[in-house]
């Protein structure tokens, strides 16, 4: 088809598209292109939602999720809640190519990464520290907790569970969440 080959990706992440395309043009496979394209975004920290130093959690730590899928064989490799490893998409590919599993998570995924030769390093940056500090200063808003005490809409934790409630406030809360904070 005159339409092929083709690279398509979410958001305006130009350098990722170009990297995937150049990988394909230089003889790389579609998996190589996906890995290199996504890896470029990890290096570029695309809009702060990809790679190290973005989206700190309640503890101020950045963790990464990634997945790669071969549409011919239906093989998949994925990592979730990966800590201290920058190359999440490459670890996902290592899961696909060096294990019989599909998804590794958390500290164990980090350990697997190190065993596979990936460098362990702090994912924190001045920017992620600043985002976290502002969140703490703003009474931990926005906040993903619900039905806990103290009220997560006005207070930081630690939290204890209360009775379940479905309030309108939760819907309002969602609207305050930053649209650059996305999966």
């Amino acid at each position: 088809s005159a339409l092929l080959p083709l690279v398509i990706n979410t958001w305006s992440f130009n350098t990722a598209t170009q990297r995937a395309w150049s990988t394909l043009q230089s003889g790389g496979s579609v998996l190589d292109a996906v890995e290199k394209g996504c890896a470029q975004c990890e290096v570029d920290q695309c809009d702060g939602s990809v790679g190290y130093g973005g989206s700190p959690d309640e503890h101020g730590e950045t963790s990464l999720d990634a997945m790669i899928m071969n549409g011919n064989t239906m093989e998949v490799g994925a990592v979730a809640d990966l800590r201290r490893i920058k190359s999440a998409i490459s670890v996902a590919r290592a899961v696909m190519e060096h294990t019989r599993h599909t998804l590794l998570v958390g500290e164990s995924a980090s350990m697997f990464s190190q065993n596979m030769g990936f460098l362990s390093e702090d994912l924190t940056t001045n920017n992620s520290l600043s985002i976290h500090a502002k969140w703490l200063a703003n009474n931990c808003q926005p906040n993903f907790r619900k039905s806990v005490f103290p009220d997560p809409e006005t207070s930081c934790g630690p939290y204890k569970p209360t009775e379940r409630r479905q309030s309108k406030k939760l819907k309002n809360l969602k609207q305050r969440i930053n649209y650059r904070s996305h999966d």
Partner: protein
Amino acid sequence: TIGMIVIDKNGNVAAGTSTNGANHKIHGRVGDSPIVGAGAYADSTAGGAAATGDGDIMMRFLPSYQAVEYMRMGLDPTISCQKAVTRIQVYYPKFFGALVCVNRTGSYGAACSKTPGFNQFHFMVQSPALNEASEHMVDCI
């Protein structure tokens, strides 16, 4: 998050995602990106799709898998993306999310869910039909 689909000239399809997730998430939270069929899906006999947005919602509907299955049934990629979005909107009318879809012959499209502050979705495409990587945009539904 980035979600990416690549198809070579022989019709081989691959998909991938990478993300650092949601700001201020609870320690240990995982979104849709690493979940097969949620963050992305690829099947060389049908096409590929990738999702982005509020993963806590989107991962409940496997929208990427759903969109690829629509394309397998012969639906246009844009329609497939839209139908995957509207299935979620039945339960969450104003959820924040978007999809890109491409079928096995290289036709592509996208769709997004309209919510306050999010009316359009931008995505990137490169193919022989385009001189360079090109930014595209769709209005949300």
